[in-house]
């Protein structure tokens, strides 16, 4: 068991609480940097997706896990980022500018979505975001002059400061850099007043308001930041798949993003990464498992069932997600033999008035 005796405020504020954390994260950093040299091309390609979905997942996590809002339409921001990147690249804009524009435009769209969200909660907000997703998808399909409609848009490899990032390794490092920067930005946010304001809004809106937090302003900010991050993920996604079309940004993708957040563990940044890794590796896992099943079983059906079972299973048995399971394991060893099952028990609210916030 580790005791941390704090004598300075900085110890509370800084990102790595103690030497041990610094060591493990440092090790992780080294592994991630060395990955392209060690793993196969296929695994590297999957890592691309994991990093991209992690960035998008971080965006959604900020909104859902930390500000307590709901979004069933985040694929719309993915689309905004992707299409902005595609269009600006086709117009010859440098990558830095097009990426920044993808983020800013997604943020603007996020603000538009955030406006009705100010007055809506719970299921109403979920349906509003769902409706929004459908409408954006339809706009993309119909606005053929700009988006190419159902024919989609092609993308060329990224050109950054004159270098062509056409290799798997270079794209990997770009994604890794952006993922790390996103994590750092969010961690900084969460240890400063704005991050605390978000958490306050999640836990008790009335209280937050009475403490001086302008709900409208901060909710909108949260939507904008969340959308911007997901937009960046979308821009990277566009380059990864090199061909984008409206069918890639439907409700299904929105649900996938939410699943990443839930499986990873709501309310933790690690969760976004763990969840992304899990969701990307799931189809592989199913294919492997399918080898043991009779041929008559169709892949698509099995994937759907497994996805559903995992979602249901996690919510019932592991509501804190993968990161929560990791925390429980670590706490078990930390306080051995004093671990109590009830430590992480989830609060249930049986009173309807308790469920209102």
């Amino acid at each position, binding site marked *: 068991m580790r005791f941390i005796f704090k004598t300075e405020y900085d110890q509370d504020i800084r990102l790595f609480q103690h030497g041990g954390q610094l060591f493990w994260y440092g090790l992780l950093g080294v592994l991630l940097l060395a990955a392209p040299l060690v793993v196969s091309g296929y695994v590297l390609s999957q890592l691309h997706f994991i990093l991209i979905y992690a960035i998008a997942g971080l965006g959604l996590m900020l909104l*859902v896990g930390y500000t307590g809002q*709901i979004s069933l339409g985040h694929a719309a921001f993915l689309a905004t980022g992707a299409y902005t990147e595609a269009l600006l690249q086709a117009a010859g804009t440098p990558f830095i500018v097009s990426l920044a524009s993808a983020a800013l435009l997604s943020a603007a769209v996020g603000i538009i979505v955030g406006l*009705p969200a100010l*007055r*809506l909660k*719970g*299921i*109403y907000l*979920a*349906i*509003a975001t*769902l*409706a*929004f997703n*459908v*409408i954006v998808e*339809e706009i993309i*399909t*119909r606005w053929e002059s700009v988006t190419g409609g159902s024919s989609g848009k092609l993308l060329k490899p990224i050109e950054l400061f004159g270098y062509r990032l056409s290799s798997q390794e270079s794209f990997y490092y770009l994604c890794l850099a952006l993922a790390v920067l996103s994590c750092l930005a969010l961690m900084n946010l969460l240890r400063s007043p704005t991050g605390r304001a978000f958490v306050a809004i999640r836990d008790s809106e*009335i209280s937050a308001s009475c403490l001086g937090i302008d709900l409208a302003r901060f909710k909108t900010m949260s939507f904008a930041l969340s959308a911007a991050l997901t937009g960046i993920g979308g821009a990277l996604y566009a380059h990864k798949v090199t061909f984008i079309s409206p069918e890639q940004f439907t*409700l299904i993708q929105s*649900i996938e993003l*939410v*699943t990443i957040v*839930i499986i990873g563990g709501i309310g933790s940044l690690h969760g976004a990464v763990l969840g992304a890794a899990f969701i990307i590796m799931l189809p592989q896992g199913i294919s492997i498992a399918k080898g043991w099943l009779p041929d*008559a*079983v*169709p892949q*698509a*059906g*099995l*994937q*759907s*069932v*497994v*996805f*559903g*079972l*995992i*979602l*249901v299973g996690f*919510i*019932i048995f592991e*509501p804190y997600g993968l990161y929560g399971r990791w925390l429980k394991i670590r706490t078990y060893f930390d306080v051995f033999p004093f671990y109590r099952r009830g430590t992480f028990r*989830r609060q*249930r*609210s*049986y*009173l*309807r*008035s308790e*469920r*209102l*916030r």
Partner: protein
Amino acid sequence: MFSQLLQLFLGGVAQGCVYALIALGFVLIYKATEAVNFAQGDMMMLGAFFGLTASTVLGLPYWATIAFAIIVMTAVGMLIERVVIRPVLGYPTFTVVMITIGVGYILRGVVTMVPGWGTDTYTLRTPFGDAVLRIGGAVIAAEQLATIGLTAALCLALYLFFRFAKLGVAMQATSQNQLAAYYMGIPVRRVNMLIWGLAAAVAAVGGILLAPVAFVHANMGFIGLKAFPAAVVGGFGSVPGAVAGGLIIGLVEAFAGFYLPEGFKDVAPYVVVLVVLLIRPSGIFGETARKKV
């Protein structure tokens, strides 16, 4: 001109009835357990498949297939509640929504994997065939009339049930305060299970009524998404609201499909729901709840 409008109107109402039935299922579950069942459309789909099997494999006549589907789906609904929903009693709404989304995935996947069903599209034979009626110059299929008629009958039955049956009152109690309902001797868990069974039965009827129009296939349930705008417009938590909302959405779709350019028909319900959420989130008949400090 008038006959054109009348035709559109009747078509919209008929389609709206199907949405109303799905929305009814939502609202029943929502009123009782405050859970929002995103799998309602998929339950409808499953009901249609059971109806199909009853018709083709068991060779039952039309009305018997409806009864068969109702019975089977009631059991399925109760099973879903028992296995999946009961463990998460008292969890936040978002969590329950995600669980029902998961259930939807499972239902779709299972249907695809069943040998006789799979990913094909099937037609459900009805005794009405292609019979049509002409009213004031408008042409309406007998199937559509049957849809409207059956929906109306079902609504009446439900109204009487909630007004005069103990279960209806018990349902309202559990939706307000589950613990207190327990203390009053209401078997809360059994009530919830029965409500899910009821909602599934209503979905089954909706599925069979929808089958002639949309055909029976595994992704049929996505039409259920449009029932959300219906429930919101009518007022979430209000049974007459669900019906009113469903009819409104059906009409909006019918008229949008005719008067507006292509593609608007599909988004029209969602635009309507966004507008409603902006102006009056509680819908036509709904109620707002606010925390008291």
